[in-house]
Structures are given as structure tokens and as C-alpha cells.
């Protein structure tokens, strides 16, 4: 766990305005060459960000998926084959064998939405160290 210090080096990327995101829905954000799915779970007053690519068939689709909960845990369902993933830690809820999603922190300042990226690393590779 020697590199935990890098965890604090979050770079906050301005994604969009809060009202650019539909209530209880998602949009896709372009960050460098990456695609990030950003969700406003307005019913719970929560924001989430994950990779946009569904690991199942590598489709850039999760931002167009439906969100909801399973036993109180927020999740998103891919529009293609309805595999569901936890918005909290990205793990696949419908199929243990499926890969997890990368997740990113989100912060709101007034009407601006920011997504957090870790300097050089992403969160997933850090927690694996």
C-alpha cells in the first residue's frame, strides 16, 4: 500500500452543468480519449460516474442504461442485454463471472459537475496494489 498517497492527488474534470443530465438518468462525458458514464440519481440526490463501456460485449452504452436499486444498492442496467452493475463499486450484480466497471468520484459545485481522476492511476489499479 505504498502508493496510497497518490489517492489524494485527484484531478477534477469539469464535465457539464447539473441540468444537462436528465433526472434519474445518465449522459456520456468525453474525457481525453475516454468515455465516462455520468448518472444523476435524483431520487436519492446522488451522482455516480463509471466507465461508459459495458464489459459484456464492449459496447459504449452504459450512459444510456436505466438506473435503479437492488436491495437498496444503486445500479445501472446495460441497454444491450440488461446486465446490471453496482454504481457504488462497479461490480456486476447479475453475473459473478463478468468484469467490474471502473468507478470515479463526482463532485458538484453550484451547478457544475466534476468527475475525479487520479493522477496517472485509476482507482481500480490502486485498490489492487
Amino acid at each position, binding site marked *: 500500500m505504498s502508493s496510497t498517497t497518490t489517492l489524494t492527488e485527484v484531478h477534477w474534470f469539469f464535465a457539464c452543468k447539473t441540468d444537462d443530465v436528465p433526472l*434519474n438518468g445518465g449522459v456520456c462525458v*468525453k474525457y481525453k480519449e475516454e468515455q465516462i458514464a455520468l448518472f444523476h440519481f435524483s431520487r436519492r440526490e446522488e451522482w455516480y460516474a463509471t466507465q461508459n463501456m459495458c464489459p459484456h460485449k464492449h459496447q*459504449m452504452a452504459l450512459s444510456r442504461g*436505466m438506473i435503479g436499486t437492488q436491495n437498496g444498492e444503486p445500479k445501472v442496467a446495460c441497454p444491450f442485454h440488461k446486465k446490471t452493475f453496482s454504481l457504488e463499486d462497479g461490480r456486476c450484480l447479475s453475473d459473478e463471472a463478468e468484469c467490474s466497471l471502473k468507478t470515479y468520484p463526482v463532485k458538484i459545485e453550484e451547478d457544475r459537475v466534476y468527475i475525479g481522476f487520479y493522477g496517472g492511476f485509476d482507482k481500480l489499479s490502486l485498490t489492487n496494489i
Partner: protein
Amino acid sequence: MKVVVIGNGMVGYKFCEKLVAKFEPGTYSLMVFGEEPRPAYDRVHLSEFFSGKSADDLLMAPANWYADNNIILHTGDPVKEINREKKAILSHKGLTVEYDYLVLATGSAAFVPPIPGVDKKGVFLYRTIEDLEMMTAHASKAKRGAVIGGGLLGLEAAKAMIDLGVTDTHVIEFAPRLMPRQIDDSGSKILQSKLETLGLTIFTNKNTSCITGDESITGMQFSDGTSIDVDMLVISAGIKPRDELAKAAGLETGPRGGIVVNEKMQTTDETIFAIGECALFNGMIYGLVAPGYEMADVVVATLSAAEKAFAGFDMSTKLKLIGVDVASFGDPFVPAADCRTVVFEDTMKGVYKRINISTDGKYLLGGVLIGDAAAYNMLLQTTKNKVALPENPEDILLGSRGGDAPQGVGVAGLPADAVICSCEGITKGAICSAVEAGNETFDSIKKCTKAATCCGGCAPMVKDIITYTLKSQGKYIRNVVCEHFNYSRQELYDLIKIKKIKSYDDVLDELGHGDGCEVCKPVVASILASLWNEMILVKGNDTAQDSNDRYLANIQKGGTYSVVPRIPGGEITPEKLIVIGEVAKKYNLYTKVTGGQRIDLFGAHVSDLPAIWEELIAAGFESGHAYGKALRTVKSCVGSTWCRFGLHDSVSFAIQIEERYRGLRAPHKIKSAVSGCIRECAEAQSKDFGIIATERGWNLYVGGNGGSKPQHAILLAADLDSETCIKYIDRFLMFYIKTADPLTRTATWLNKLEGGMDYLRNVVINDSLGINAELEAEMQSLVDNYKCEWKEVVDNPELRKRFNHFVNAPEEKDPSIQFEMMRDQKKAAGW
């Protein structure tokens, strides 16, 4: 305790799973050697490799499962030698590992008969993923194929060839009939003629004498002097147990192969076990997974000092071969003198059923089902558990024919120790107790008992047992929508209507709990649309729509969308055709005439959708609702305007109907058609509602569909005038919309409706429920409220914004989308 497993196939894997579950971590060390390059995968579903499953999809457990459970797995490293004195094994890569207990799970290999020429290029086996990869590579060049062996695996291999595009395929069987070991003579005949209608050529009584060709196969010669030309061959002539390691180590093996084991699965060395397809028990090799899993269980029990013995295993099977159900259970071949046999045969439909009943008429001994094996689970359980038969035993095959309720044996009649899921060995009692302990859904039963998680064949029966247990606990069984709503769809529909609720969030607040999910959202969204017919993308209802509804288009492979303008009755002017062509050209869309008499434009970027529709709408088109659980097409034949047989103008009537019900949202999609005479060129009897012209008016049929389970519509009323016909359709559709479960087509709904067609006729024609005036008024208000949803999007800048791919780069398209070219048009790149 040091345990080494040789072979990481289905049974070897199951042994690890059972061992890990039984023993505390730290009390054992477990090492597995597998010869194949990847961890254990599901061989039973191997053929799904051809219908799109990847090697990863087929894995029994992900690669990290082994490490997570402290199992050391060496793949691609076969064991070469067993040293029984030193109690150690030597692997191909040179590892020496000592064991306290050794488990041989080496399975079997395909048996290759000594025919000259079997080593030629283009000759394959059918057992591993590598075999399938090699077949795939070769098949693109092959035109005519053959399979040696007309047993279960041979027929699967033949199906695989057809899937690979080698449609001219022969099956060559040495015995006088197909599947000689599982089914009887008449059953084989029906199966054969069914498979022949699907395009296979079948030779029985044929013995291959040699395979011809220089380097690659070009043909086959048979001992009767005939020959055929083929450029691809799969050999599936049986299996040969992998006993070579055991033999070399001096363990006893059978004369025709197989490692001899006792009832504890011990070989002649009591520290060495053999399980699965390599084990020979009582002179028999068990070539199915369920007995292999049972053997694995016996070894784990023995290692934990529990008493458990293998007592042979029932070899009943149910399969779908090339789309044809084939099942055999118990003893399918009891000689006529020792039993009473009931046979049902329908050569037209290709259905054959035979049951063997004890001479006293009390018990079921076994039987064969071809073409329709729906009764398999029940018959198998009745046989295995010696359940007493009803007074007229033939009823369990044919249903009661006296008008009373069917006399069959239900799940209630099964004893608690009846094994329901034979793959995992789960009894009825175990399922009932799990339900009583609060696991009241199919999913939670699957999780906590593992029933129905392997081949899935027992799933319908597991569901029946859950319902039966809940009912016997006095619980009211309802088809609740999901964890967020404690109501069925019909109850929700009524409540939303009475309370006049108009948005998803309000429905959730008033009638549900929690925050919703992908199951209840589209159900509620569809009810709201059926009730109020408001624009589906407003009032916060947009994100409650199924993804296709939300973008008013069907999403496709790669993430593009399709555009399907409505073409009522299939009638279109040359001017409009030109507009479609121009739009397709401008936005580079793949263009195809659909099976529903209209034109589909595929491959549109989400951000192009509003512009495309703007142009189409300007030319007079409107949404075709190809994306919605809504009215699709009303097909029509050309009718009396041109056709010399036409009785009425079917095109005009089809257009009138399509325009009346366009945009109507329902529990599932609805299709219709109008034919101008009984020749039925519009195929109206395959639709949810279909209309056929008669001398005196129209015949109205309801409850048909094509799709995976085709069913013909049934006549609701005859010789109607146009106005009455529409009135009946209004009532029928509205009654369906109000009462059907989610995603249930009219055919399935009607099949489940208590009282069936007689009841429906009474409601729709005789107004037995006194609701017809209400049904008609509700339909009229939906018709009056219709607006084209694409027009509303095109005219509304706020809604248009929702169709950008990137929220922070609206002008950019998704760069990951890729196309390939085929016959001068684009197609989506593969997954």
C-alpha cells in the same frame, strides 16, 4: 490432507467446488492439473460456441476463482505418470507433486474408428473448444459435410455444421436407426423425418470403408459400394475413456476401457479415486454430467469420513436436437409382454410419445418423447418415485378427454425425497424447506439451493414447487412486478387508473417503495402510456422508458440505431420511396425491406436521429414504433383492387386499422394483418389479431404469433361488417392491455386466460363482464390522443438535446463505432 486432481473438466471442477464447500480452509491443500489450455468449461453447452458464446462465457468459474479458493491450477500441463509407491505424480512440464489422495477426472476422448484416411485434413472431432475453433476455420471453405455417428453427439455436430453454413450435411449411422441407445424404433423414424425436413440427409445401415482425397478429404466410400463427395467430416462414433495413466500405473481397467471403481469411487488403490467419464462402475461408463457430479459428491463425502455410496444413476435425458425435443426416461424399451404401452403419434406435426406402464396399470416404467417433451419432468418424477397412476393412465400422456380438469400427477404428488434437479442432486424437500425459510423467488432458490443452475431443465418444475409450497402455506400467490412493487401488472394498472397518476416517480411514491429498477420502470411506463397516451419522453418519464423507447429507435450491435418509418398496409408511393432512398444515402444507412412490409434503415448515429426524422416527417412519414411494445405493422395483401380472387379491399382496411391503433402501447408488441380472401397471402392467422375477407364480410382471428413459439390465431367471430369488426378489436385489445402480464404476447395471454377462447368470446361479444362500453370509450380516447412522438422530438430543442452522444462535445460522434462493407452497403462490425 494433500489432494491432487488430474483433469480439469466438468466433473474435476465440480469436485473442487464441492470440496471447498465441505472443508474448512486450511485443512487441505488442493492442486489441479489440466491438459487443456483453459480452466474447466461447460462442455454440455459446447455447441453454443457457434451461437455466439465465447470461450470465456462457457467457463465453469472465472480463472481467479481457483486462486480465491486456495486451489493451485496448472492448465496446459497434463500429468504423465503416477508413482504409487512414492504417492507422487509427474507432470509434462516436470513438476513432481506428492499426494495423500489422488482423484482421476480425466474424462474421455472421442472414439475414432480405424477407417483408412481419418487423418486427412478436414476431418474433425467434436469434444473441445479447440476442435470447434478448427472446424470454424475450415467451414468457410467447405460446402458439403458429413458426420459419422447418428447418436446424441453426432446430431449436435450436424447442427453445428449447419450453423457454420455447411447446409448440405449428411449423417451416417451404422445402426438401422438414429439414437439407437436412447429411443425406440418409431421414435427414431419420426425424429429422422423431422430432421430431414430441416435439411439434413440421413443414411442408416451405412458403414464407412474409407475416406478419400489426397491431403484433404474429398469424399467417403461405404461398404455397400456407394460413395459421396464431402469436404468436411466430423467423427462422432462414441467415446473412449481416458484410462491410459491409470493403466500404466497398474490400476485395474475394463476390457473396453474405463478405470474400475467401487461404490466409493475408489480404484484398486484405495487412495486413488476415479470420477466422471473415465470411471467404470458395475461395467458401465456414465457419459452424462449428472452422474459425474454425483460421483464427485461421493468422493468428497468419503474424504470427510461420511458414509455415501454411488448407487448407479438414472440415464434419462432431455435434449433439443436441431430444434426438435427428444427425451427418454426410465426404461424406454420394456418388452411388450412385460408392460402396457400407450403410444401417441402425429406424423404431420412430428410428435411421438410412448409410455410404458406396469401390467397392473399402477406405475410408469419409462418412455420416449419426440417433438414435444413438455411433460418430461413430470413423467420422469412419476417413474422415479413410483407415484401411483390415475385410473386412466393414458391421461398423463394425452390429458383428460372428458371435459374435466386434467387428471395428471402434479408436484403435490411427489415424495419429499424426489430428486428434482439431478445435476446438483436437489430434492423436492430441500426446495420446499428453502421456500419455507423465506426464499420465495426463483432467483433466491437458485442462489441458496443451486437447483436449476446447471442445465436448467428442471426450471419449470422448480417454479411449480415454489408456487405449490407458498400456496400450501396459505400465501396468496401473485405475480408481483419486482422488489419495488408488491402488485401484479394488472393490479398496478387498475390502481394507477383509479388514482389518475401520471408519472413514474409518483407511482413509485404512492404505490411502491425504494428507487425502482430496470424491471418496474418499463412496466409502469407502458401502463402510463396505455392509460393516458401522453408523449412518452416528458414529465420525467423519459428515463423510465426502456432504452429503445427512450431513444425512439432500436439500439443495435455497436451502438447505432435503426429508423423505421410507418408504411401502413405496405402501400407506398414512388415519391416517398425516393425520399427514403435519399435519406439513406445522405446519412449512409444500411437499407433493408423488413418482414413486416416496410423499410428499415440501420446504422444511424444517435445524434443523427432527429435530423433524419425531420426530413422523413417533412415528406409525410411518421414513427413506425418499431422500438416500442406497441402496434407494429398491419400487413396486407393487395386485395380486390387488383387481385382476381380478392373479395374486399384489404389494403384500405389494413390502412384504416393501422392508423386507428398506431402508437398504442401494450404489455408486448402487437401485430396484425388483413387478407383479401381465404388464400391468406397476408398471413393474418399468424398475428395477434388477423382479418380475412369472406363473401359476407370479415372473419376476425385473435391470439396468433410467429416468433420462437409460433401459434395460429383462433376465430373470434365470423362474417362481420367493418364497423363491428373494429368494435370487437377495440374491446379485445383493451381487455388484453388491462389484464396481461408484462412482456406477454396475446397468444400466451390467451393460453393462460382461465376459460380460454370461450371466456374471451363471452367478454368481447356477449359483454359478460359488462365492461364493453368502457373498453370502447378508453380505446377511443387513446385513438384521439395519438401524436407522432418523433414529430414532437423534432420540434422540441430540449428533447433534441437528449440525442447527443457526448454531453460535453455535442457535435462529436461516438468514435468507437465501426462498420464493415458487405454487398455494397455497410454492416455493424462484429462484437
